[in-house]
């Protein structure tokens, strides 16, 4: 089921972070960054034996764009709720969403996406049943939230990580 990716995720990210941190693309820093990335990845493998195997770069890029759009959109929505709060307090509530995604990296990404978007906060995942509890600031349509999370985020994440 799992095939190795084009490039391992951790060393590549570490090398990019190193170059950004030094704000330089000189040969010395590229070499140093590569050595650093390989050494740290080898050390981390001992601590965390399960590596991330992301696949399908185009799905990941599309997901990033989608998340960016959603963050902008929900910033506006939450701003509107706050400015209208004197007239009407928002109806807060929890939504239970059964997930099919099992990969720990995919779940971690989903929690970052959900919590990073204003208006929704990840409030726990039951490991036995794989049911996500999601807290929503202005809960109007429970079904719509389940659909949004499952279609917009969970499906691409399953494509990338599973």
């Amino acid at each position, binding site marked *: 089921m799992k095939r190795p990716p084009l490039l391992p995720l951790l060393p590549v990210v570490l090398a990019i972070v190193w170059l950004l941190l030094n704000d330089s693309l000189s040969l010395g820093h590229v070499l140093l960054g590569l050595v650093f990335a390989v050494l740290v990845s080898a050390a981390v493998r001992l601590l965390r034996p399960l590596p991330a195997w992301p696949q399908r770069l185009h799905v990941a890029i599309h997901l990033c764009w989608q998340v960016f759009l959603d963050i902008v959109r929900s910033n506006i929505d939450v701003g509107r709720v*706050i400015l209208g*709060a004197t007239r009407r307090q928002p109806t807060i509530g929890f939504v239970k969403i059964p997930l099919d995604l099992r990969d720990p990296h995919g779940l971690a990404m989903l*929690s970052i996406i959900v919590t*990073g978007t204003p208006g929704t*906060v990840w409030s726990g995942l039951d490991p036995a049943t794989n049911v996500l509890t999601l*807290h929503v600031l202005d809960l109007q349509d429970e079904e719509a939230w389940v659909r949004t999370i499952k279609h917009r985020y969970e499906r691409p994440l399953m494509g990338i990580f599973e």
Partner: protein
Amino acid sequence: MSAADVPLWAALPATVLLICGGLLTLVGSLGLLRLDSFFARIHAPTMGGTLGAGCVLLASMLTSTALAERLVIHELLITLFILITAPVTTTLLMRAAMLRSRE
């Protein structure tokens, strides 16, 4: 190097971005005052943490790129670190509040 050295093509969008970022963060902070329960308030500061911070960082990238006359993008690191740390604290706060309200 001073603020007057920033060319107009960078200064104008940077100003707009800074104003937008400031307003978004202000509205987010205002939410702490205007919303009435903890569970509603927890959503408000995320505005400043996402788009608010994003606008300020983009403005910073623009002006430093214009001043240094080369591409300066190491602000992306701040974005990365905010992205991986802020949700952790929010989730922890949320879990703590849920456990406490269950008592």
